[in-house]
């Protein structure tokens, strides 16, 4: 587009066409000293975007690897888990067969309980358990290395024989508990079960059940809380494309593959509305005559006048228009209600659809620029050229949610989503349109 050439513009342009100012030596030296090594410059925003993209890729890859490569459920008890020392009654104690594949004994040394796994003898035999009754009438299950034991079923037969001698699987023991000093006095290979399960298997499964992590994981329903951040790119607004920051906390109830999520969040964005100011130009002031008084001068023989003046401002009668763009920061309170269904629902990873409405209520609109200063001009009228933001807004959003369990109860969620605004973000006006947006919700979740 060719601009009209104004004579003053041409005059100045021509006059300064060849104008040069030589920089001072100090400025030159400063530049040469600081001249950085040239390199491809990537601005911070781009760096941030690449970092976000890289993080998302890493999380996704890690999730896929986790799901693909992780073995099936481990049956091993977590380290540190031990059989608690509770009083034991003889009627509750049973001997476990040496060939039982479950962890067979726990060893107590200097007050600490140590887990031991089944060990094989040279002949491939498992160690057998004996349950001799000590003189003090305390139940002791002994795990003794018996390389000379007959192999195969003989081992179990031997122990069964011992059991048979007692008349049944249950060893009849006096109603007396085992105490720690007594345990210390036992052989190093002696395992003492101080609990009162019917067998070791139920005992172990009971242990497993009592593990809070596995309890949560095995539960069909789950409760979780999350902190989220969603960068959102809003389109179809009067001001062009807008960037919106969303942050908040949410709670989620998960039942099988279905979930409901709600919470509170803040949505912060910047925007502007243009206003037109009708004003009269200030033209200046003059000394206006208020009154004149006359006094007869006897000496000079005529009337002496006194003029009483005051400053009078003058404004042009022509009404002019000025336009001002008010930069504002809008903070909305957001209350989402998101329903979900997981296509893939595994312990460590889930992938599903999330759909639901969100209510936004304008909490604060803070003007970022200074107020318009008309100087001495007379303001006649102020009108909105573009509408201001709306107070309450409804949106519906839909997205694909990927959840990855990082560690025990801690997990991350990534949810790319699309959002449609039912009503415009602006106050009702002829020029408003219904915006839509895309965003990526990133959340850190804790499962209870």
């Amino acid at each position, binding site marked *: *587009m060719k601009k009209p050439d104004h004579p003053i513009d041409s005059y*100045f342009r021509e006059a300064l066409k060849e104008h040069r100012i*030589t*920089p001072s030596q100090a400025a030159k030296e400063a530049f040469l000293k600081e001249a950085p090594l*040239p390199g491809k410059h990537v601005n911070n925003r781009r760096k941030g975007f690449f970092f976000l993209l890289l993080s998302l890729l890493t999380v996704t890859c890690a999730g896929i690897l986790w799901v693909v490569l992780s073995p099936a459920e481990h049956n091993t008890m977590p380290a540190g888990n031990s059989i608690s020392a509770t009083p034991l009654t003889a009627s509750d104690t049973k001997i476990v067969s040496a060939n039982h594949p479950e962890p067979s004994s726990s060893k107590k040394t200097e007050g600490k309980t140590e887990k031991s796994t089944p060990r094989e003898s040279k002949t491939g035999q498992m160690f057998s358990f004996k349950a001799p009754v000590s003189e003090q009438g305390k139940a002791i299950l002994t795990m003794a290395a018996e390389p000379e034991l007959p192999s195969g079923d003989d081992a179990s037969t031997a122990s069964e024989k011992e059991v048979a001698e007692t008349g049944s699987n249950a060893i009849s023991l006096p109603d007396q508990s085992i105490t720690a000093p007594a345990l210390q006095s036992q052989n190093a290979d002696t395992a003492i079960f101080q609990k009162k399960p019917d067998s070791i298997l139920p005992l172990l499964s009971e242990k497993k059940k009592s593990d809070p992590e596995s309890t949560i994981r095995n539960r069909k329903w789950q409760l979780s809380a999350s902190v989220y951040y969603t960068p959102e790119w809003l389109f179809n607004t009067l001001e062009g494309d807008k960037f919106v920051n969303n942050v908040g906390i949410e709670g989620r109830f998960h039942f099988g593959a279905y979930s409901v999520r709600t919470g509170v969040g803040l949505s912060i964005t910047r925007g502007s509305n243009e206003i037109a100011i009708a004003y009269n130009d200030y033209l200046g002031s003059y000394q206006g005559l208020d009154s004149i008084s006359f006094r007869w001068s006897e000496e000079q023989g005529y009337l002496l006048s006194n003029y009483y003046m005051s400053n009078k401002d003058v404004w042009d009668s022509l009404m002019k228009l000025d336009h001002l763009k008010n930069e504002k920061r809008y903070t909305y309170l957001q209350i989402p209600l998101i329903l979900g269904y997981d296509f893939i629902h595994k312990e460590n990873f889930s992938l599903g659809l999330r759909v639901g409405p969100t209510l936004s209520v304008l909490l604060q609109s803070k003007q970022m620029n200074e107020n318009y200063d008309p100087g001495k001009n007379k303001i006649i009228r102020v009108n909105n050229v573009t509408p201001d933001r709306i107070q309450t807004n409804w949106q519906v959003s839909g997205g694909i949610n990927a959840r990855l369990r990082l560690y025990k109860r801690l997990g991350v969620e990534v949810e790319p989503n699309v959002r449609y605004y039912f009503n415009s973000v602006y106050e009702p006006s002829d020029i408003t349109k219904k915006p839509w947006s895309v965003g990526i919700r990133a959340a850190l979740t804790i499962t209870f």
Partner: protein
Amino acid sequence: MQVEEKLIKKVLNRDVNAMEALYNQYAPALLSLCFRYCGNREDAEDVLHDGFIKIMRNVANFKVRKGSSFEGWMKRIMVNTALNHLRDRAKEKKFLDIEPIQDLLEINDEGEVGPDAVFPDVSQEKIMEIICDLPPGYRTVFNLYVFENYLHKEIAELLCCSENTSKSQLSKARILLRKKLNQLASEKKTIKIYEKT
């Protein structure tokens, strides 16, 4: 252009001599540009320094193509640096520098002059002085519109104001400049008459 290309390649290879050569070649014109925006030499040299550092950092981004001007590219960086500098300076001031001009009362022609208008023959330094005497808002719009050939729409986007504000600032700048030129012309006439007598 070939000389420029060679210089750019050398700068990319971290050749300090090439950097110095580039500085020597372009700094005077760019300092003049900075001076027009800043209104004083100290600030202009600061902007020139910052701008040149940016140019050195981003020189890899300049694509040497037919029709692409390295000087034009450097000027754009320098203008942006100058505008950022002015924004920083104006942070404590008003958003829009709309100042009531009381000394324009004698001029009612809104700065409009006919095609046959005669302007005084004054030195470049004097003309630069006249531009620098303009209030910052007028000066910026005038510089962008007249010297950088921006449209009012582009100026409005750059300065976060409306097109109408840009237009009114330019108009007011012209009025002030016209007045200054008239003053200079009358001073020259007076001097000539005095010299004759």
